[in-house]
């Protein structure tokens, strides 16, 4: 190596630019990825970590400071009878909604799998509710059911031949039936569309072979349709269940959680604690508890989904 002689001249701007250019040349792939990584960190990871912190401190607007309170926020949720009831109701409503929607969706899909005149029009009408905002669905059903102005009791009265005085939105068990009715009306088409796609993908030669073997339609349904449709059924139930456990909009509009706390679902409970009472720490702790319950159920379903193959 030749020894340096004389004084070092300061780096020229052109050299700095060249080094910068070289550096960007070497790291260009990272530069391209950086915005996406930063976005994920800012919009996903940071809020998640922040929410963990909030759930262990006092983050209540009406109480000054953010003192560490350990598990107090979690215990307030666990020992709150309203929270426990909301979880029970969430499970019951989700199960009822998804079960009914699955049954009706499957029946509709089986009815619509063969072509007939006007099938396209009927299908279009059937899936319209899917595209309506749940808030609008809730408002529409509230208008239909609300006494004394809604027409439901009047129409039922005409059908059965005597006065009907059901308080659909305030009387047990009718208020639960009303909520299920609104949900089933909106989301049955979702089941229908997915199951119809599954039905149309079953190879027709299976049915032809069964027919040659003299298999009746009920046996064909049990031995061919259901096993072949299995993965799609699991997919539809998983997706729908994921959404059903977040039930909020129709409750907010139709019953506002009432009467009392009879129609508090977990989402409605967390909303009320967080954004009506503004106990953010308690609401955040409740969200984590709810997330753990949800994750347990969903991971089971997803595991089944990933391991399932058509028979």
């Amino acid at each position, binding site marked *: 190596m030749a020894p340096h002689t004389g004084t070092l001249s300061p780096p020229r701007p052109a050299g700095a630019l060249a080094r910068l250019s070289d550096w*960007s040349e070497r790291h*260009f792939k990272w530069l391209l990825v950086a915005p996406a990584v930063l976005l994920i960190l800012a919009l996903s990871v940071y809020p998640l970590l922040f929410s963990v912190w909030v759930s262990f401190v006092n983050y*209540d*607007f*009406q*109480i*000054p400071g953010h003192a560490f309170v350990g598990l107090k926020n979690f215990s307030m949720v666990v020992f709150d009878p309203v929270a426990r009831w909301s979880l029970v109701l969430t499970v019951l409503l989700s199960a009822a909604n998804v079960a009914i929607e699955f049954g009706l969706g499957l029946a509709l899909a089986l009815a619509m799998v063969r072509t007939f005149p006007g099938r396209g029009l009927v299908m279009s009408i059937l899936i319209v509710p899917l595209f309506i905002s749940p808030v609008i669905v809730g408002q529409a059903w509230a208008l239909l059911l*609300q*006494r*004394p*102005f809604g027409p439901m009791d009047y129409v039922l009265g005409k059908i059965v031949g005597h006065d009907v*005085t059901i*308080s*659909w*939105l*305030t*009387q*047990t068990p009718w208020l639960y039936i009303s909520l299920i009715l609104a949900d089933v009306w909106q989301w049955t088409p979702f089941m229908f569309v997915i199951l119809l796609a599954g039905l149309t993908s079953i190879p027709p030669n299976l049915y032809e072979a069964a027919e040659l073997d003299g298999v009746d339609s009920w046996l064909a349904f049990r031995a061919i349709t259901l096993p072949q449709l299995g993965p799609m059924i699991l997919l539809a139930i998983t997706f729908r269940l994921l959404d059903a456990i977040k039930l909020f909009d129709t409750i907010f509009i139709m*019953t*506002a*959680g*009432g*009467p*009392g*706390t*009879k129609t508090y679902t977990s989402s409605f409970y967390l909303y*009320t604690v967080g*954004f*009506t*009472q*503004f*106990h953010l720490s308690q609401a955040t702790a409740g969200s984590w508890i709810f997330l753990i319950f949800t994750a347990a159920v969903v991971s089971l379903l997803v595991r089944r989904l990933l391991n399932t193959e058509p028979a």
Partner: protein
Amino acid sequence: MNERERRDFEAGLAEEVDAWLSGRPTRRTFITRLGQMMGMLPLAGLALPAWTSEAVAAAALDLADASTPLGKAQAAALKASTEGPADGSAFRAVAAAKQYSGVSLSMTFEAGLQALDQRNFSGPVWEQLTGIKSNVVELSHPDQYSKPVAEHIAASGAYDILDIEPAWTPSLADGGVIAPLDDYIAKYMNKADFEDYHPLYKALPTYKGKIWGFFDDGDMLALYYRKDIFADPKLKDAYAKKFNKPLEVPKTWEDYAEVAQFISDQLAPNVYGAGHFRKAGSPGNQYDFMQQFRANKGVLFDADMKAQLASPQGIKTLENMLAANKASIPGNNELDAVSLWAAFLQGKVAMIYSWPPTGRMAANYSQSAKAINFIPQSSVAGKVGYAVMPGGHPEHATGYNKALAADSANAEAAYLFMQWATSPPVSLARTMLPYSLRDPYRLSHFKSDLYRSLWPDAKDYLINLNNSANVGLLDMIMPGWQDYALSLDRMCSSVWAGTDPKEALQTAAAEWDQTTERLGVDSQKAAFAEYSKLPGSSADHTIETMGMAVKMD
């Protein structure tokens, strides 16, 4: 595009695409163009709202015919703003605000009709007078509390002026969401304006010795009843025979339930005795319970801040409310305020108690505006009487203060708007807007000849609102009111659905105690002590019992 042009285009496209894909020569172009695009975004963000708000302002100003009472009130408001008197708050506000011409103020309103005043009248007039624009933010009622809190936590400075319930003042003041006005008041306001408030409303924005807003909506509940039904000779005879006393507008809650049941028994299904907005969250339950419980001499907390809801007075209140429900229109427990209005305007109900717009709608004055044409035309216009609530102590249910957001970047301009909008001449014009839900609250409103000429019985309506304020009760203006009120709403609606009143009262009392403990027993005790000093905090401590009642004829 001919063949050659197409080939040139595709070649150019391919060159550009190749360059992008290979990443060789165009990084600089990439970065330059990215920078250009990023630069365009804020420019577009600046240009679009400015253009749209100008277009909206130009289209919005909606002044009434100058020959009508409303037109005259609006002309008087403009005159007071531009010609004086020079020491008037409206004139002073406008003169001082001109230095902020070009500023835009964001202000929250309850979504719907409340915001129309600002969109159609106050906002455009203020802009014409001062050059200050207004950005109306419409929020649902609960969000009028939660959004400012959230924005304050985020330090966004999103709002300049907040419409808030007076009961929220302690929470928002302690939380630093709103700022005191005392310095601005000393600098700009004509203090005589304070003397023009009805005494019940005068102290509402005061907390810990400071003034945290201007009261701006007199939400006093009152009884609205069908004069023709109470004057019906057959009904009067039948009532006298059955109860051995004359049929009169009820003065006690027991009489109220009894009269309602009698009318339902006689006239249903054409007319029912009463109707109430009892739907969960509507929010009639909490206000009705509070007024009846306190009229029954119920005490809210004991000396140790333990809730006293589960008491004989609590049982009596809920049992009487149940009796009233039984006497009411079918579906009573599912009604919200608007549905109840619809039932009354259609002549289906003989008595309701609700907010002051009821009187304006019943007279068909409100429906003269297109904005409120979703409310049915009144079939009972001219037949409606006004009375102080049974029990003699109506609830002042919510109301609104205009408050200054602590994070406002234009605090002084915002304050000046608040002073102008709530000044006597401007607030009169605003409360007279047919579509407005902004109700009279100043003595000059109650005495206004212009307001009294809006419909034949308007004078009686205004006098009744004044008299109701003399004996009226206030919501609990203290931290935690949101939680306490939610517990009451849950308690009442669960009782309507069949829960035993005693059990529901105990549950609500336990929730109240939990709220008190969460916020700190000592600090809540101090807050309740301060609230108890306000006129209207209990039936024994009203404007009337304090010797401050305003007599009016």
